């Protein structure tokens, strides 16, 4: 078996057993990137030299018995909105041209402490705003299952990199589905943890009250291991929950697990193949001893407007600091201070980012605050209550991740409202701050992957991961691989 086909934990085990060196693994990953990335465009920055140097360091740590994590020595990549000291961090935007952070984000630091070899920074929608990874300054990411299709977004590069075997695992961020939807489109496993579980320190903010960092990997075991490494209280993040880092061993038993299917997640726009595969997945879990019940969550119809109001409002404020003065892009010509702001931001931000900043500034402006932002916060509270009611009856909710499989490149951006509506299955989870796990559950008639979303109660990641693990123990969708194209051949 090709080294890069291994899961992160399989590789980690062989590294600890000295069957494979960290350098070998790193070179293999870098080779795969070299062969495939010109086709898929998963990476914005590949740090070849640093990675090879780091591999030696990590190998030394392992040999000296200092690095014992099952992830030690495993090459990985992180989304380009996570700050890494001294490494270009662009959020895929012209606005952050040449920006190198002076500090490393907490989640990345945690993985470094566990012995990660960082391969580079993955491509994404500009400032994590988008569902297709087409709005990047560095060009669109392509779906390894079909290069004419998008990988989903905004963590499209992180998802495609795992799918294309260009990284053993990756970190993404999820504000309204940005880990889960690309995981679904790319046929991999992804977890959006409970809000406050993983420190956001060093994650370049899109919408502070909704953003959460999470892992993407080849299977639930990998994702669970990375989750355990990045979670835990961080005094530098006031919204980080004061609880110890999670420790658990996965169990493949779902006997007696009460699973609810909220019917409102499967609306008219849901493709028949997606619907069919979700129900088949439910049958599989039922066959393993879980109980399945359908129910209604009518509040879901408010989720998309509320999500876009809150996210855009916070984004309009969070992105104000990019003014052309301190770092990043600055316009060449301007008349005065106001014009410097105007020109730099007009030229530095892409269309979708500008659209969301304007929506956000509008909904917060005096006279409109009560009608939009305040109402949206009320919907957020309502959504949380709806989930509380659901979790009084069920342990886990089962839904599609997106109404469709991956759309073709170039078909989504022209109609932003339609694109926003395709977030129906994911955004409410962020509004309620809950964890969501996506596992592959089959393919549509065109052979494109379909992801099953499992939603858990707050801090019920263990239940969620056990359910996903049990599902993968009894299925092989997650083991399917695309037929890779290499940029060189093409």
């Amino acid at each position, binding site marked *: 078996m090709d080294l890069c086909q291994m899961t992160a934990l399989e590789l980690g085990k062989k590294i600890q057993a000295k069957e494979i060196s960290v350098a070998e693994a790193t070179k293999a990953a870098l080779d795969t990137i070299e062969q495939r990335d010109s086709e898929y465009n998963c990476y914005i920055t590949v740090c070849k030299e640093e990675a090879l140097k780091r591999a030696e360091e990590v190998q030394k740590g392992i040999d000296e018995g200092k690095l014992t994590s099952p992830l030690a020595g495993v090459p990985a990549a992180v989304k380009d909105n996570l700050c890494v000291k001294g490494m270009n*961090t662009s959020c895929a935007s012209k606005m952050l041209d040449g920006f190198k952070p002076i500090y490393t984000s907490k989640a990345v630091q945690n993985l470094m402490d566990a012995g990660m070899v960082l391969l580079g920074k993955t491509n994404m929608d500009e400032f994590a705003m988008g569902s297709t990874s087409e709005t990047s300054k560095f060009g669109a990411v392509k779906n390894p299952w079909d290069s004419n299709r998008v990988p989903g977004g905004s963590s499209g590069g992180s998802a495609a990199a795992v799918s294309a075997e260009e990284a053993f695992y990756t970190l993404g961020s999820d504000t309204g589905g940005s880990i889960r939807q690309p995981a679904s489109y790319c046929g991999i496993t992804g977890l959006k943890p409970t809000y406050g579980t993983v420190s956001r320190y060093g994650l370049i*903010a899109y919408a502070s009250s909704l953003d959460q960092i999470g892992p993407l990997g080849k299977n639930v075991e990998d994702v669970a291991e990375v989750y355990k490494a990045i979670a835990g209280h961080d005094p530098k993040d*006031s919204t980080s929950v004061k609880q110890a880092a999670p420790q658990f061993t996965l169990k493949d038993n779902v006997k007696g697990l009460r699973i609810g299917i909220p019917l409102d997640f499967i609306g008219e726009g849901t493709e028949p193949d997606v619907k069919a595969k979700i129900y088949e997945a439910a049958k599989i879990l039922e066959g393993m001893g879980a109980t399945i019940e359908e129910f209604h969550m009518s509040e879901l119809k408010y989720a998309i407007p509320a999500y876009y109001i809150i996210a855009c409002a916070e984004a309009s404020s969070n992105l104000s600091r990019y003014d052309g*003065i301190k770092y990043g892009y600055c316009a060449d010509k301007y008349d005065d201070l106001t014009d410097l702001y105007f020109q730099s931001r007009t030229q530095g931000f892409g269309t979708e980012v500008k659209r969301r900043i304007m929506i956000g500034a509008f909904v*917060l402006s*005096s006279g409109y605050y009560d009608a939009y932002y305040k109402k949206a916060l009320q919907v957020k509270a309502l959504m949380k209550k709806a989930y509380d009611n659901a979790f009084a009856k069920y342990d886990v909710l089962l839904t599609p991740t997106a109404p469709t499989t991956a759309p073709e490149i170039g078909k989504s951006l022209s109609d932003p409202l339609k694109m926003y509506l395709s977030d129906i299955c994911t955004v409410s989870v962020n509004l309620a701050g809950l964890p969501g796990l996506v596992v592959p559950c089959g393919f549509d008639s065109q052979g494109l992957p379909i992801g099953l979303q499992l939603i858990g109660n707050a801090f019920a990641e263990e239940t969620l991961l056990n359910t996903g693990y049990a599902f993968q123990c009894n299925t092989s969708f997650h083991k399917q691989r695309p037929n890779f194209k290499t940029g060189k051949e093409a």
Partner: protein
Amino acid sequence: MDFETVMGLEVHVELSTKTKIFCSCTTEFGGDPNTHVCEICSGMPGVLPVLNEQVVEFAIRTGVATNCEITRYNKFDRKNYFYPDLPKAYQTSQLYLPICQNGHIDIEVNGVKKSIRIKEIHMEEDAGKLIHDPWDDCTLVDYNRCGVPLLEIVSEPDFSSGEEVIAYLTKLKAILQYIDVSDCKMEQGSLRADVNLSVRPVGSTELGTRTEMKNINSFKAIARAIEGERARQIEVIQEGKKVIQETRRWDDNKGASYAMRSKENAHDYRYFPEPDLVPIEISEEWIERVKNSLPELPEAKKARYIAEFGLPEYDVDIITSSKDLVKIFERACAVCENAKEVSNWIMGEVLRMASETNTLPEDITFDAANLGKLILLVKGGVVNRNTAKEVFEKMFTDNVEPEQNINEHNLKMVNDDSVVLEVVKKVIDENPNSITQWKDGNDKVEKFLMGQCMKLLKGKANPAIVTKVLLEELQKI
């Protein structure tokens, strides 16, 4: 038509916490530009704030000392605007739930007592400083001040004169210094006042259109700014025009205010709750603990000084208006146990020297215990009062120890009758004209002769003895 003035104040106070409000950088004033900064206070991408609990403690202290209700459930909000001194392009402040509300400070102007209501006190972060470099024609940014904690103390529009404003600010400053939350150094910008002012015909109950004056950095400038703006608004109205609601910048050098560009006025701050901070809940116990730990405040101290020491109200007012004068007073009293005498020295020599050397009370450096010693030396007849004043000047400027200074410079009072007698005889011999005048019944000459004797005695003699001997000798003529 007669007009009356209606004013409200917004006072910004920099808190004297060791570290900034959302990071662990020092709040120390000065320092080379951009040396007191980190990724958090310079607003780098991806950073998050963590609230300094001391700021909350200081805010509660201030609220309790100004008779406010303390808000139990607190939140921060973002105030969004673009300016190069604000690296995040929003200021984290409190709009919806300020930490203190509905307080008051009592003042007295020309014997009339008045209560000024405090609408609210909220916590926020300071911005950096812009420095214009005229040589290179560019503007430079110093972020050292970014994130220094501030309290904004907002009064109701209860002021009707500049004197009331000054009395309020004096009292507020004293309170803040007593409770140790700020050094209130206006010249360093740690206390800044914005004045909202409107005028209306006497008897009218409706408020006129107000203007806000920013950038005023001394009590005297505030008094001038108020007078100037009041006159300007009355003139505008009398010309039949309307006062425009706007922010004006007071230029104290030119003695005039001017409107800031309309763009600067057209802010919509797009306030919304700060999502990166969690709400702060303040317990009853916390408030109680703060209440019990507050020191004696100016009002109470003033009453006690009057009752306990029988000091004049005017003197006590001045002494208790400054924490530093109180310190001098209490330390000197502890040494000499003569409150009346200490008070006289402070009102006289200490304030005279302070004004002559342009020293603010907080910058006075001499050891106040030495003032107590000096008072004892005068009382014990070791030095006379005039020499003591000279010694005090040395104390004030160089912090000398009085007894040592007296010995070193041989300043002890001359009490020896024979020495005095010799000098008196010499003066009588050398001033025959004056003696003739005295014989003609001109008593005033005595003072002149006295002065001549003291001069020869280098001012060190006991004046009572000189007077006695001089009169005795004159009688003998």
